[in-house]
């Protein structure tokens, strides 16, 4: 090997080394922040889940799987899991159908489309608490907007928020209206990316609008549908703000959802260890569902880079 080649290699290595140092230097602030703000609390949650940590106590003991055993024998926790499932099952299909419908209607430019797009999107940028409180007023029994309108028509409205069967559906409705805009925007973006030629060819073959939607639009936006599905599933499993502001988990515990339960355990009864165990279960459920959806995507997401 000549000296010239050796020198060249040395220079290349030196450059690579220098680049990597700079690379690490630039990602370091983000990396350290991520480790401290995200990774560390996740690890601590796993650690606390196996302790009896209580914020009002100065001692913490390792208790193994005791918190998990207690959780599964806790009637409220079991009903909370079912209610979270009910929330998710009601929210996801209604969200997907409505947002796909809205995106189909608002993807084309027409007079006033900007207004409608803005109107649908505005709740997304509204504070969750403000949104929840606003709907709480709308659903009040004697003084709420809905029952006042019904009263003018001679109808006595129900106690919307003091009704065991209505609490979860109303929470779903309020969450649905709030989140429509974001998913609609994702779908509009995906729909506008579908080449016009496909529709022209389909029209020449005599396909009607419904056939075009199901045979062209849906398969082509499948990656976006997949993304929205995952985001909405995770969002619905993690719902908290709307429930806290709207029903506060009531009546009774009929609208308790997982994160609300975790909040109650951690910040009302100060049982951090117990709440951490519930968080771990929620974490595992979300991971499992996401992996399942990811595996299933191969069956129905065809149009993907």
């Amino acid at each position, binding site marked *: 090997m000549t000296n010239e080649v050796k020198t060249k290699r040395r220079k290349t290595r030196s450059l690579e080394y220098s680049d990597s140092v700079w690379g690490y230097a630039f990602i370091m602030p983000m990396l350290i922040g991520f480790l401290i703000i995200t990774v560390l609390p996740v690890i601590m949650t796993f650690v606390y889940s196996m302790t009896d940590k209580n914020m*009002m106590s100065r001692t913490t003991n390792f208790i193994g799987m005791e918190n998990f055993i207690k959780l599964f024998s806790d009637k409220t926790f079991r009903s909370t899991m079912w209610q979270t499932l009910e929330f998710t099952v009601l929210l996801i299909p209604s969200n997907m159908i409505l947002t796909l419908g809205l995106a189909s209607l608002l993807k084309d430019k027409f007079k006033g489309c900007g207004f409608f797009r803005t109107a649908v999107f505005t709740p997304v940028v509204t504070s969750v608490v403000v949104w929840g409180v606003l709907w709480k007023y709308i659903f009040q029994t004697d003084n709420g907007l809905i029952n006042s309108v019904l*009263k003018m028509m001679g109808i006595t409205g129900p106690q919307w928020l003091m009704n065991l069967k209505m609490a979860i559906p109303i929470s779903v409705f309020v969450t649905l209206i709030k989140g429509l805009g974001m998913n609609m925007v994702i779908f509009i973006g995906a729909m506008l990316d579908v080449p016009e030629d496909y529709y022209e060819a389909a029209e020449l073959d005599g396909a009607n609008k419904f056939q075009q939607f199901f045979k062209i639009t849906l398969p082509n936006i499948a990656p976006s549908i997949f993304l929205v599905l995952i985001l909405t599933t995770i969002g619905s499993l993690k719902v908290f703000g709307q429930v806290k502001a709207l029903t506060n988990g009531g009546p009774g515990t009929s609208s308790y959802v997982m994160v609300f339960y975790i909040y109650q355990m951690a910040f009302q009864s100060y049982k951090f260890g117990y709440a951490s165990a519930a968080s771990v279960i929620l974490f595992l459920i979300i991971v499992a569902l996401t992996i399942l959806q990811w595996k299933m995507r191969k069956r129905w997401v065809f149009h993907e880079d």
Partner: protein
Amino acid sequence: MKKQTKKMIDLLLVFAMLVTMLAGCGGKSGDGSGTDSAASAQSGSEAGGDTQADVSGDKVQLTIAMWGDEARAEAYQKTLAPFCEANNCTVKIELVPIGDFFDKLASQLGAGTAPDVFWLADAKEATFIQGGWCANLKDALTADASYNFDDFYTDAITSTDYGDGGVYGVPFSFGARAIFYNKTMFENAGLKTPDEYVAEGNWTYETMFDLASKISAADSTKVGLKLWCVGQATNGVQNFADILPAYGANLLNEDSTEFILDSPEGIKVTQMVYDSMYTNGGHAKPGDDVAFVSGNVGMARECYSYMKSMVEGNVDFEWGIVPQPYGSKGADGKQYTGYAYWCANETSANRDLAVELVKFVTNPENQLAWCSTFMCPRTSVMESAEILNPGEGYPAAEDIKASFVDCVAERGLFSYRGTSEWNLLSNAVEQTYEMIWAGAYSVEEGVAEMKAAVEPYLN
């Protein structure tokens, strides 16, 4: 040599970036949630330490956590200025919304970053006192005759005694309530006003519920009665706390070791309230947020400071106040109150100074100075001109005295003795009431369910 220099420069730059970043992360900046005393050095800790003394220059900085607005924090800074001067310290006030206050305080105590002095209230103090976080103030308060320790109402000053005779919080506010009524609404409905019933000696809960249903029947857009702070503590422990003792019932016994709402009297009162909401009408429904100040409510149970809201609200109707009605127990039916307390952090590095601050801010002069905001359970304050003659637009002094002072003297006060799991107990009570209002249980079934739900959290 050249290569090594380059490497050194690279490493130095990386190090410099890290140091800059970490310095940035650790920097202190005001978030607008607290105010420093005028003398406070700007380098003071924002959170206020309790394991290490906060020092601003050569002065100790005490941190106080309270709820309220900036104006309140500034006013307290003025109140505390002589204390700061005398003790060569500064004070930083952290304002936390009351909804988050106790959760945040618990987190801070657990993390070792709690303030030196903090407020507690609503029987939630039990959790903190029994956890050993509050300093016993008794020796400091009783050592100084000018503090006039015996001036406090007995129930108030003993309410933080959990068995050892200690005083773990000094009450600065209590919630004796009166019935506010809309005179104009009563006149329009052609009904006798509550003060007429008081004069006749017929002012009972039965009368009040009856009047409420008549008001709502006369105008369906009006709410006859709002017995509790609807929308705030919708169905909590405190909601029936006045009416229950009026009939010889209660939710819990004196030391919160037993659930006693399942007595015949307890069932009767709960049924009365249920009927007022759902059968006879008149009482606001749970969750319906209507304010007396709006003019749409005939009668409401409100505290002393609500008079200020009425006066400042420039309402376009006439209103008055009367004492709370009598039940079957007459004058033996004690009046419920919750207390708010000044507490010193037992684990604070500045514990003794924190105790002195609590003593200073709750002395007779300062409590009198703050009485227009907080009705303090001291005899000297309650009988002062400041309480009885608050100013123009307020009810007459004799009405205020009858409703807020004489009533307490005649019937006596009681407060619930908190338990170490008071939040869970309170949640269980609220949740079961909600099940009754939602129609899932009859009153009797609901009370039985409540008993089972509450018992694990009793003392």
